[in-house]
């Protein structure tokens, strides 16, 4: 028979807290954690028999789980996490093995963003819970993603506005270097924004629904970069003037960005 592992009271409560915050609907975890704190820290309780008497922390959380609502949450999480995976992959590899005959490829990241924003905002506005003042870590994370996104967008603006002029000027080498730098920045900032969105999602479920703002902003930046990446790959520069390229891109990027910022604001409220 498998021997139950030994945990200290603090370790037990920590593991139990994590598990119930992930599994239980809002408000319920705090109640269950308070009850378990009382049970675990009973003076009569023998710490070495904690797991034997109470059961494994995850198993204890499982017993309190409403399976139906937990499965619903897992489905929502799977859809949102898959969207993040696609965005990260598209931004990093600049390639998609999904091909839809009725739509241009550069719109795929925007659709992914639309689904992610609609589903996550709907879910967390209904099932999420605010918890105290705005976390400082969230403010910092949002600032980092926002600044990185703005820097990349400025780089795209700069490069797309200069292409035709620079092609015939003596600064071609400098432009190539600048373009390479912007493309590299797009690749990393896009991928990392999608990666940063995942903890936002997890923390929104476990601690405070306002962490969703990090998810929304991360998805927006990743989608905007994905849009530009796929567009760059599909255009023929010989048939475009600089202004056409810049105005086409930013006439679409600005509304996408505004929608993302509104979504971020809604998540923070």
């Amino acid at each position, binding site marked *: 028979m498998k021997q139950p592992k030994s945990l200290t009271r603090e370790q037990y409560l920590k593991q139990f807290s994590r598990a119930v915050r992930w599994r239980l609907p809002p408000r319920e975890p705090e109640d269950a954690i308070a*009850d378990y704190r*009382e*049970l675990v820290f*009973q*003076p009569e309780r023998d710490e070495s028999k904690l797991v034997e008497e*109470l*059961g494994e922390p995850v198993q*204890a959380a499982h*017993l*309190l789980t409403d399976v139906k609502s937990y499965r619903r949450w897992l489905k929502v999480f799977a859809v949102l996490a898959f969207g993040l995976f696609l965005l990260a992959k598209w931004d990093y590899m600049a390639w998609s093995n999904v091909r839809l005959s009725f739509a241009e490829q550069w719109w795929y990241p925007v659709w992914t963003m639309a689904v992610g924003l609609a589903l996550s905002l709907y879910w967390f506005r209904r099932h999420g819970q605010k918890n105290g003042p705005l976390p400082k870590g969230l403010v910092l994370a949002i600032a980092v993603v926002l600044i990185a996104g703005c820097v990349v967008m400025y780089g795209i603006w700069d490069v797309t506005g200069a292409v035709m002029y620079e092609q015939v000027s003596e600064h071609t080498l400098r432009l190539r270097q600048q373009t390479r730098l912007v493309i590299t920045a797009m690749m990393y900032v896009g991928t990392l924004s999608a990666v940063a969105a995942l903890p936002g999602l997890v923390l929104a479920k476990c601690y405070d629904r306002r962490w969703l703002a990090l998810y929304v902003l991360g998805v927006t930046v990743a989608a905007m970069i994905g849009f530009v990446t796929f567009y760059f790959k599909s255009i023929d520069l010989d048939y475009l003037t600089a202004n056409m390229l810049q105005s086409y891109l930013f006439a679409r990027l600005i509304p996408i960005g505004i929608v993302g910022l509104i979504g971020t604001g809604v998540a923070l409220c």
Partner: protein
Amino acid sequence: MLKKDLLELCLLQLLDGGDKYGYEVLTPLRAAFPDTQESAIYALLRGLGKEKYTEWYMAPGGGGPDRKYYRITSAGQARLEEMRDQWRNMRDAIASFGVE
């Protein structure tokens, strides 16, 4: 009656004897059903609260921090009576087979 029902019956019976805090409820039940972990009994206790068969309040406990005390409600009393009947019927049915 399943084991879960028997545990519920015992929980309500225990609270019918007076208000008790969590550990006070769980310990005798674990002693009576040693193959059942306290987390399972706690889950049943919580379920009884959701069904409004029990309610809780905070009160000072033994010189330490406040404790959560559980008490049976009138709905819980009715449920206990119903479960006692079921238990008696089952006990009689089993006894009719000669099981002591």
